[in-house]
């Protein structure tokens, strides 16, 4: 009898000590992240207009409205285009540069330093710099085209509805490929060289070695890079906000910007809360599905 009581109080005491370690982090996190999430959910069940207006309970009406809102559909579409564009661009460039640097000795450090540099910039600065590059009058992009005789390609990159989203995507690729490259490089450097040598002896050419030995060996890194790109692609806000604010004509409107607009410009924080919960649900589901798929593959 006494032994079991001792065991129980021992476990309880251990737990209490552990909770003491957790307390500071838990306190800050619960106060400034968890509570707002719950409050936000409660907010989504009202038609609050912000400020001192009363909060009237309207149940799931906001959600029903959101599911029928064409702007929500449009934003999601833009998010998907963004995700596909940025992921392909970043993974493509990152893998390419990682493969090149992997087989390079001279100057590897210099290249790595410079490729990674864009990742440390604030997205505000990145947005301002690239806004300027894309500027139709002062911008360096159009000037380059004009100086090599391709002035037909000059245009208002961010103001033109055909090219706006694409232009911001290119900016994001510029900013992000170095970071993914470092991850790919780490993955490549941990490949067992014997596998590659064996393939070479078996007569595999460079492309075959890449496809059947290298790629499978870096599967883990590829999964991580892609998952992060997908989650970030749904959450994207700063860079688009600074460069185009969702315009021109909603061509670059993504979910996060639509939520921001509803909350602060159209005085509909209740509705914004509902859309934000929908976005959070999408991100959560995709993450879970993706991780499950990856686990099954291993």
């Amino acid at each position, binding site marked *: 009898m006494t032994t079991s009581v001792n065991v129980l109080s021992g476990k309880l005491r251990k737990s209490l000590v552990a909770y003491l370690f957790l307390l500071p982090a838990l306190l800050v996190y619960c106060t400034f*992240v968890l509570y707002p999430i719950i409050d936000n959910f409660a907010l989504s069940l009202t038609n609050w207009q912000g400020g001192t207006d009363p909060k009237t309970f309207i149940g799931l009406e906001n959600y029903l409205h959101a599911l029928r809102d064409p702007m929500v559909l449009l934003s999601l579409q833009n998010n998907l285009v963004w995700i596909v564009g940025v992921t392909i661009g970043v993974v493509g460039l990152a893998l390419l540069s990682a493969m090149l640097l992997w087989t390079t000795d001279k100057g590897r450090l210099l290249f790595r330093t410079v490729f990674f540099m864009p990742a440390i910039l*604030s997205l505000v600065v990145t947005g301002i710099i690239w806004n300027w590059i894309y500027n139709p009058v002062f911008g360096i992009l159009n000037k380059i085209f004009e100086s090599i005789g391709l002035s037909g390609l000059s245009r208002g990159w961010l103001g033109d509805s055909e090219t706006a989203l694409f232009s911001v995507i290119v900016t994001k690729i510029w900013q992000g490929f170095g970071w993914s490259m470092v991850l790919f490089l780490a993955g490549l450097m941990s490949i067992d060289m014997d596998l590659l040598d064996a393939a070479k002896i078996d007569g595999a050419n460079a492309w075959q070695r890449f496809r059947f030995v290298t790629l499978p060996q870096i599967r883990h890194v590829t999964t991580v890079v892609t998952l992060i790109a997908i989650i970030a692609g749904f959450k994207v806000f700063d860079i688009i906000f600074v460069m185009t604010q969702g315009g021109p004509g909603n061509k670059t409107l993504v979910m996060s910007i639509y939520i921001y607009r509803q909350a602060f410009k159209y005085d509909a924080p209740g509705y914004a809360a509902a859309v934000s919960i929908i976005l959070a649900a999408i991100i959560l589901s995709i993450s879970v599905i993706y991780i499950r798929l990856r686990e099954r593959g291993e």
Partner: protein
Amino acid sequence: MSVKLKRKSIVRKKKLAASLIKYFVLVVLFVFSIFPFVWIWLTALKEPSELLDNIFGFPASFNWRNFTQAWVKGRFGTYFKNSIIITVPTVAGVCLFSALAGYAFGKLKFIGRNFLFFLFLLGLMIPFQAIMVSLYYELRDLHILMTYWAAILPMAALGLPLGVFIMRAFFKGLPYELMDAALIDGCNQFGVFWRVMLPSAAPALSSVAVFQSLQSWNDFLVPLLYLQKDELRPLTVGLMLFKGRYTINYPMLAAGATIVTLPLIIIYIIFQRQFISGLTAGALKG
């Protein structure tokens, strides 16, 4: 003999060609990565009138006036100070609290361990938009809205998930023998943590510190929404408003952008390894 030599020289030529192509691509990517920086720094030194005629080239003379104007008239001195005031406590808080919590998650057994860890992971996936409005009113009700805390506390809270994730992974990897040896020597749990575990956690801590520093230094939405007094604004928000005010005077805007970026880049070049390992640590552990 001559056939063998010929084959060898063809192979050597092929290798040279492959090498040249490789370096060509690398140089193209190099220029692609670096030209926006170089262009902005050069433009910051130009006169506004030079802009239209001399977009590519070097400035006619080193015009430091843009910088002094940006620092004083553009109030970048104030913004710089604010960025530091906001970043330092946030980083210190995240490092300390993540280490404590990460140690508990990684080495201690307790009820609800997996559930609580999952709770932290939630913070990594939710979009900021899901809490920004509620957070505003909560900060207002706590009466900290127009103070530095309105930025420090939310930033720290949002930085804790990744910090805890990294520290937990690190502590999990430490051998239990370290802990047992200290316990046998008479330390209590906290003593074990403070005297044994924490000192060996330096690499993981520096990753967290670097990552959080960059996050906080570059964060723009949190200070924009919750620090609406101009004296409190950090560099990121200052730069954005500066852009709105001085759209015509590009060299001055470039000078502002340079003030924001150059110190960071210099620190980056010196502490490269820490930056890169800090910014990729979370992903590699995943």
